């Protein structure tokens, strides 16, 4: 005969409940994460760890953006995006690229204001970064909220300069492409 005492009933039921809960929790992670892995697809909050999977392609060109401000004292200064939008962290980079490509206007169900813009444009193709000035206005206001109007670093305008690195070689990094400018 076993000398082990039988656990009280509520202990057994607690144990059974926990096992069931943990089984479901594990399954809740296992199934979506396996799907994301197999499909190599991110569908928030399900993540596929496809960070930098392709690495850098020297043969491809790369477009990038530099945020700058024109101060009331006439200086042009670089403004790190994280200083005007710290919650976004490195996502600022992806956000600007998406706005430059007019991604939010390509949604199957765009924001009503974007839908209106698309209707107005009709068959005429929209210019790149049609919403970029809205972003620049927001960033300019954020920056100026920390630099008083009397300060020489207060901005009179903010701009985003787009450059291209054509690739193929490790030089010629700064080919100017275009600029978006917003008066503040």
């Amino acid at each position, binding site marked *: 005969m076993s000398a082990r005492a039988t656990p009280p009933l*509520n*202990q057994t039921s*607690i*144990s059974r409940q*926990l096992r069931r*809960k943990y089984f479901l*929790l594990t399954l809740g992670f296992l199934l979506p994460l396996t799907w994301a*892995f197999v499909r*190599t697809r991110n*569908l*928030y*909050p399900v*993540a*596929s*760890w*496809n*960070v*930098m*999977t*392709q*690495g*850098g*392609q*020297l043969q491809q060109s*790369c477009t*990038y*953006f*530099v945020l700058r401000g024109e101060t009331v004292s006439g200086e042009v200064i*670089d403004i790190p995006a*994280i200083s005007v*939008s*710290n*919650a*976004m*962290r*490195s*996502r*600022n*980079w*992806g*956000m*600007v*690229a*998406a706005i430059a490509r007019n*991604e*939010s206007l390509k949604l199957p169900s765009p*924001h*009503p204001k*974007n839908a209106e813009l698309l209707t107005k444009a009709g068959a005429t193709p929209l210019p790149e970064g049609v919403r970029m000035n*809205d*972003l620049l206005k*927001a*960033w300019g*206001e*954020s920056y100026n*909220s920390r630099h008083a109007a009397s300060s020489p670093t207060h901005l009179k305008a903010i701009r985003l300069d787009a*450059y291209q*690195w054509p690739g193929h070689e*490790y030089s010629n*990094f700064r080919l100017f492409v275009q600029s978006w400018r917003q008066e503040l």
Partner: protein
Amino acid sequence: MASGTLVRLTSATPSALGVLRVIISGTFLVSVLGASFYDLARLPVTTLLPTGLMKLLPWRFYDRLFTPVGMVSLKLALVFSLSLSVAGFLTPVSTRTSALLVLFYQGLLRCFGHFNHDEMISIYFLIVLAFSPCADAFSIDSFLKTPARKPKFAYGYPILLMQSLMAWSYFSSALIKLRVSGLSYLSVDNLPTLAITQSLDNLHDAHFQLAFWLPAVRHYTSFMLALVLVWELVFPVAIFWKRSRWVILGFGIIFHVVTLFLLNFIFSYQLVMYVVFIDWRRVLMWFRKLRLSQATTANWNRLSVSS
């Protein structure tokens, strides 16, 4: 090794899970407190690209959220819920509301067209904590009412699950790299090009220029990439073989810090989440012993003086 894992599964204590609740919820609390929600409220709602679950919310909701009142309300809700979670008060509710609110907030940040992976593991950990008895120690709840006795695996399994999720993030990342790029991932131009493209703008976390040195040493960068790939593949060993953790996690810390200087971003949340590999039972025992020995020394000194 496997039997060692099973022993740890049943030897984890309520305190170990309690400490993890404090650190994981605390990490988000600190980050939310430091984030400017006013700046976030200024961002144009017309640039949003709702992703995944976030697509379920109507545009009218986002219009109301992207206002100073909407964003301050979100911040207050996050701070309130995460503070309760850290303190371990009303934990069955506060850990769940924290997980839900953080899930929403992080989803919102990813609605601007960039799905980054840094915070993902920490979000998953919050979900694990929301369904675990993580307030049976190190909490106001456990101080107010003695929690019901639970089997040891109640505390060990959530920790094992969190370790497995962390290991999966690295292991699957290596497999995807091999599947997508094959051995061309190790090409000499991969890292220099990648690092330079992340260093040209001023939209990243930092603006270091070390990447421009890489082309000069490009023939060694393949070795660096291979080393990282192997490290990602062996990361799961850290779950089963405790002694390997110093090497695997140590390499991870170096790797993520190097990404800051070369790629101008850092997976800071992922780094903090390495705490799930610390044997908190032993750490707490060591602290108790230390406190006990300090108290003994103080008593001894007092006795010596009085005599």
